[in-house]
Every structure is written in C-alpha cells, then in structure tokens.
C-alpha cells in the first residue's frame, strides 16, 4: 500500500538527518505504528506521506505510484490527517469542519450532509445535537472524535494520525483507543499512527516500527517486539511487559500425572471420563488420543516452549478441553483450560499480594 524506499530527510541547517535509510512497506488495511523517543523522526516520516515534508532522497509510493506524480492537493484529499493538536477550525461548525474535504472534492450538498450525520453517529454523537455546534463547545475527547471523522469524511484509503490522543485525559484516551480499534475493524483503512506511548502502540498496532535517531531499530508485531527484541534499546523502550500470557506452557501445564494422560499399558483400566485421554508408550513416545478401545492420531499438539498466548490460539482451533504437550515427540504433559485458569488465578493473587512475589 505505502512503500518507503531509501527515504532520508535532512532539514536545512541541521547537521544530522532527521530520517535515514528508511525502508518499509505498510500493507493494505494495516494499522502501522511509528514509535520512538522524541526526535527519532517518526513524525517527519508520517508527514512525508502527505507531502507536508518532502524527503531529501528516496521515494514513497502509494499503490505503486510515486506520490510526487499526484497533484499535491488531490493526494491530501485521499490521505486523512489527524493532528495531535486536534486543530478543528474554530470559526466553523462541527458539520463544516467535517465537510472540509468533501467540499473540496465537490460532493453534492445533500451527500455531504448525509455523510456528516453518518460519521457523527458512527462515533456516538447525536447529529441533531452536535451538527451546528462550534468546536469550543465540545470536550477534548469529543473534539478529537470529530478530528478523526473529519479525516475519514471523504473516505480516504489512508489515514495518518500524529499522536492523536496524547493531548487527552487518560479516560478519554482509553475510550478513543477502543473506538479507533473498533473503527479499524469496521472500516479496514490503512492507518499510519505516530505515538510515543508504548502501551498505545502495543494495544493498537498490527505492526510497530520502532525508531531511534532517524533509523529504524525494529519493525514487527507487538509480540515480536516483546518476545524477540532486536537489541537492548528495544527491550528498554518496551520495558518489562512480560505478562502472564507470555509464560511458557512448561510452567503452566500438568505433568505426567495429569488426569488426561495415561500409558498404553494402563489405558484399558482408565475410566471413560475425563476425555480426552492422551496415550504414551513405554518409551514415553506420544501415540495419540484414546478413541474407544483404539488410539486415534492427534495432530493438534503444543510445545512446552510455546507461550500461553500462542497455546490458547491452538486451543481455539479444537474442541478439546486439554491438549498434549510434546517435546521432541515425547509426551511431557498436558495443558487444560483448568491449568490455565488456576495459573492465572495464582498470578493475579501474587501480583495483588505484592511485587516482591514476582
């Protein structure tokens, strides 16, 4: 969707480039977060997409077309823009603010009006109440909601958001983060989102691009950044975020004494319930799942090194209430919903009981 090739930007009078060697591709419908400490070049990178800043070298393509081939204004009509300062136009009403881009695109009056109402409803603001108000009559959270739908108004393919929630109080911020996540699931826009708040990045981003001093340090999914940080900077920047869901299955599962496990030798004596029952032979080799009097093959297994988060995804693919844990073909234990539940309960109590425990 958006491809950066060898982008670099050095501002006039500056010694060091603000951005350099920037190569990345933002996929269609992706929520792509640019994050890093102040001065890392994240906002500069964002503003190069709608040509508020022109790169010194390199090219940016949108759907394989160099953005310099677009008329600058038309390009901007197709790229929504949400600012940190919200920047609703104070002399215009809410409806006029939302209608700015549709008007420039010469939509018909009634089309614009319908669109305005639709968008206001989408973010939970009653059109009849808010349409003719001035921005100053709205709370900060409401204003930025208008800021977001103003960017959406002409149905652009791409939306740029420059720290859109950082000026808001924590409550509004959380609410808007939830809204934007829901919105993204509905509208499936490509969103490039700048923030300095790692929680926000982890919560919202499909992928996160961590920058430092104009360079990309790491691009990856939130889990990749958390679990496979490229270097100490990434680790430090993310901080200690290894939550319960990152615990390896090994520490959560029940061992060989699990009620879901039996040796092939013991199988005939085992009660019919609980099910499933996973069977191993005298060499501990995993044989499969009891199926009446015989053994059925079991494809869905998990590794003790999987983290809980991934293990649960595997659970979602089956109806089983427990899954076998295999290490090099040998059955080492079983993980059941009950195990997970008990583990989480313990973790919760531990963290509530005091930090010294963990």
């Amino acid at each position: 969707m958006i491809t950066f090739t060898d982008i670099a930007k050095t501002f006039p009078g500056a010694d060091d480039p603000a951005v350099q060697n920037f190569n990345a591709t933002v996929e269609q419908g992706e929520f792509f977060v640019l994050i890093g400490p102040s001065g890392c070049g994240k906002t500069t990178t964002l503003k190069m997409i709608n040509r508020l800043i022109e790169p010194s070298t390199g090219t940016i393509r949108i759907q394989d077309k160099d953005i310099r081939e677009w008329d600058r204004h038309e390009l901007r009509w197709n790229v929504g823009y949400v600012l940190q300062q919200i920047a609703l136009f104070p002399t215009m009403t809410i409806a006029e603010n939302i209608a700015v881009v549709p008007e420039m695109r010469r939509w018909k009056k009634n089309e614009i009006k319908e669109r305005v109402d639709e968008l206001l409803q989408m973010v939970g603001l009653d059109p009849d109440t808010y349409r003719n108000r001035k921005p100053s009559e709205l709370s900060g959270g409401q204003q930025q909601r208008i800021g977001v739908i103003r960017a959406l108004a002409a149905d652009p393919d791409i939306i740029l958001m420059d720290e859109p929630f950082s000026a808001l109080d924590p409550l509004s911020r959380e609410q808007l983060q939830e809204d934007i996540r829901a919105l993204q699931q509905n509208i499936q826009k490509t969103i490039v989102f700048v923030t300095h708040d790692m929680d926000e990045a982890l919560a919202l981003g499909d992928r996160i691009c961590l920058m430092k001093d104009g360079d990309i340090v790491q691009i990856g999914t939130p889990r990749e950044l958390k679990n496979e940080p490229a270097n100490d900077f990434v680790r430090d920047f993310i901080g200690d975020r290894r939550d319960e869901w990152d615990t390896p299955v090994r520490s959560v599962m029940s061992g060989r004494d699990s009620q879901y496990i039996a040796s092939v030798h013991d199988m005939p004596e085992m009660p019919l319930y609980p099910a499933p029952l996973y069977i191993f032979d005298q060499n501990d080799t995993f044989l499969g799942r009891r199926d009446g009097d015989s053994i059925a093959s079991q494809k869905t297994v998990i590794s003790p090194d999987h983290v809980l988060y991934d293990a649960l995804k595997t659970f979602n693919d089956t109806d089983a209430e427990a899954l076998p844990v295999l290490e090099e073909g040998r059955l080492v234990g079983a993980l059941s919903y009950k195990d997970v539940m008990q583990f989480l309960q313990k973790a919760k109590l531990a963290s509530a009981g005091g930090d010294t425990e963990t």
Partner: protein
Amino acid sequence: MNLLENTYQLFTDEQGQFWTLVWEHVNMSLISLLCASFIAVPVGVLLTRRRSIAEPIIGIAAVLQTIPSLALLGFMILILNQIGTVPAVVALTAYALLPILRNTYTGIAGVDPALVEAATGMGMNSFRRLRKIELPMAMPVIMAGIRTSMVLIVGTATLAALISAGGLGDFIMTGIDRADNAYILLGAIPAALLALFFDLVLRITERTSQGKALAPVAVVLGVALLVVITPALASTQQEELVIGGKEGAEPEILANMYSLLIEENTDLETSVEAGLGSTSIAFNALESDDIDIYPEFTGTVTANLYDQGVPSGSTREEVYEEARGLLAEDGLAYLEPMEYNNTYALALREEEADNLGIETISDLEPHTDELVPGFTFEFADRQTDGYPAIVDTYGFEFDEVETLDAGLRSNALQEGQIDLIDAYSTDAYIIEYGLTVLEDDENVFPPYQGAPLLKQETLDDNPGLEEALNRLGGQITNEEMQEMNYEVDYEGADHREVARDYLEENNLLGSN
C-alpha cells in the same frame, strides 16, 4: 457654560454649511479608509506568504505614520501638484496604512500553526486556506486595525481643510483664525461623533458577520462606494474660474470680490476656493491649475516666492514692479494692486505701550528682557522682512521668543503670556484687542499690497477678465479693510455679503 449654547446657536445658523462639511468629511474619510484597506489588507496577506520582506515593508508604512500629518498633506500637494480632495485622500490613505497592514500581518501570522498545518494537510491550497481559515481567524484583529485607522483618518481629515479639501476642519480653522471656540467645537464635536459612529458601525458589522471572512469587508465596501460615487456623479462642473484665497477673512473677502466682479462684468462662471493653508499651498495650487486666480501681496511675491529682498525704503511702486517682473518671467500676470498696505507690523498691548512709553520699534530695545513676543512661525522665519530682519536692522534680540499660530495668539495676548505680536496692518484684532502698532522707524517691512495673481494664459483666454479685476485697482484703504475684516471675524457677517456691500457702495459692480 455659554460656549455650548453659542456652539448650538452657530449650528442652527450654519446648518447648510454644516451638513455640506459633514458630508465632505465622511466622503473624504471613507474613500481614504477604503483605499487604505484595499492596499493594506492584500499587502498584509502577501507579507504572510513572504515573511522575509515583511519587516521592511511594515517599516515603510511606519515611516509614513511618523511623518506629521500636516507635513504629509503639504508633501502630497508637491508630489501630486494639486490641492483639494485628491492629495488629502492620498495623504490620509498613506497615514492609515500602518494599523491595517500591521494588524493584517499580525492577525494572519498569529493563526495557530496547527490550524494552518491541518488546513494544508487536508489539501487546501493557499488561497482557500486564506479564505476559509486564516481571514476568518484574523478578522477581529484586522477589523481592529481598520477601526484604528478609521479614527485616525476622521481625526486627521480635519487638517485637510488646510489644503482646501473641506470637511469639518473648515470650522476648526475658522475658529482658530477668529479665536472663536464655538466654531472650533462645531468642527471638533461632530468629528469626534463621526469617529464614534463609524467605530460602532464597524464593530456591529464585525460582530454580526462572525467567522465569515469577506462579509464585513463587503458591507463597508458597499456603503463606502455609495458615498464615494454619489458626489462623483454630482460634480460635473469645472468649466469655471476657480478663485483661491489663503486662510483668513481678508483673502476670502477679496476672493469673493473677484468672483462678483467677474460674474457681473463677464460671461464667466466662478467658484471660490478659500482657506488655503499657506502661501506655498496657494501658489502651487495656481501653478497646477487647481485655482485660476488668487490675491497675493507684492511683498510676499518678492520675499517668499522669489526669495529676493527689496532694499529698505523701497516705495510701493518699486516693489510692485519688481514683483510683476519676477512673475512675468514665469508666465504669470499680476494685475493692479489695491490701495491698502497690509504690511507686517509689530503690535504691543496698549497699556504696556503707554506704561513703557514705547512708540517705535527702536523703543523696544531697553525692554528685550521683560517683553515676550509671540510670533507666527512664518514671521519668525522670514529672513528679509521678518524677525531676523528686525534683529539685523535694529540690532537687538528678545531674550525669549514664543512661536505660535496666528489665530491662537489673541488669548495668549489677553492673558499676558505674550506682550508683542507681529500683526498685519489690516487685522481686525488690532481694533478688538486694543493693540498699538509700533512705527517701523527703520523701514524694515516692505510694502504689502494685494493684487490679483493669475496665469497670463488665463488672462489671454478670457477677454474682459483683466478689466473686471482692475476695477479694484487703487481701491480699499487700510481702514476699510480693517472694518470689513472686523465685520466678518467679530460680527459673523458673510464674506460674500461684505464683499458685495463694499463693491456696491463704491459703485464698482455695475457696468458704468
């Protein structure tokens, strides 16, 4: 307080002229404000797009503002080579540029950069951004600038009377000239009310059109255009001789005499354009054909216009011939002079003259430390026949010399702040204030005889003109002139009526 009653009385008496002057004032002010806005707002906007040149350009406007308004008016006459409304409007416009320019620039430059970035980032081009965001945001500041300029213009326009542009300044100048506070108030109060009224109108238009960039401008524009166009349609004249005259009763009486004589004895139409602020303004007006004729003094021609002193003791005839010769070289005709000699004189308060036993200028010498003269700027500066000449010839100097406007001196004289003034022999207030004219025993002051000054071509193009004007040759004595001045200045008589009465009494009007 009798003054307000007098002013009201004057208002009822002068209704006709009052409304004409108000109209002129409004007209002149609105054109100037309009011109200033049309120049300063676009330039201000342009400067926000080229910030590097903003400070120098605003600096130029600031320099215009620092020029004293009267100087700017005088300057415009020289540049444009004409008097009246045009140079007044140009000067007022120049004067009003700075507040509008600066406020436009500051207003637009002060728009939150985030809003500008939002507008740009959403794909507005520069003009749309200006129209939709920046102008509406900056409008209160721009309007404040326009309002400041408007007050400036309405106030300064009172000075335009000095270059014959009319307006309420006419009353004020008359008041200063006659030391009549009622006239001053009749000009000053309506001028202040006009400023308040316009301010109110602008504020209301601004408030009712909030957020819409062009609406207030459009309203002001519409009204102002209306005001500007109406007189333009009305004034389709100019096929007539314009007779000028300097500030004061005497020149205006004379101008009216010329007018009456010309209209009675030729087929020509005339109009009178009196109240020109100074000799150079009047002379420039003649040169640039804004006026066709005006009465000028022989001594003024030689000393002021040509900077040539005449030898002490020159006779009237010698001075007149000298002046005529100088003027003829420049294609100007100088017709027969009148009888009276309105020369400079030094006049002392009668009681002091009696107490100190002063009769001649020479008698002043022992008292230079105790007597304070109050001279006009012109007299204090005239090398050949002013105060410097007195210093040269009589060989003494006053310890302290006040310089102030002629019309303002009478009060200072009455209250004893000054004792001695330069006067004209025909001035009415010599009678009114009981002054003693000191004898010029060393003949420093050259003769000052009034005579019609006009271009030779005007004379050639209008047969009968010369004969009509020469009817005044050798007429009007010092006493007669003093009397006529007194009637106008202190008895409120109309200039034209006084002129007509004199001409009729002396059988100068009818074709005999």
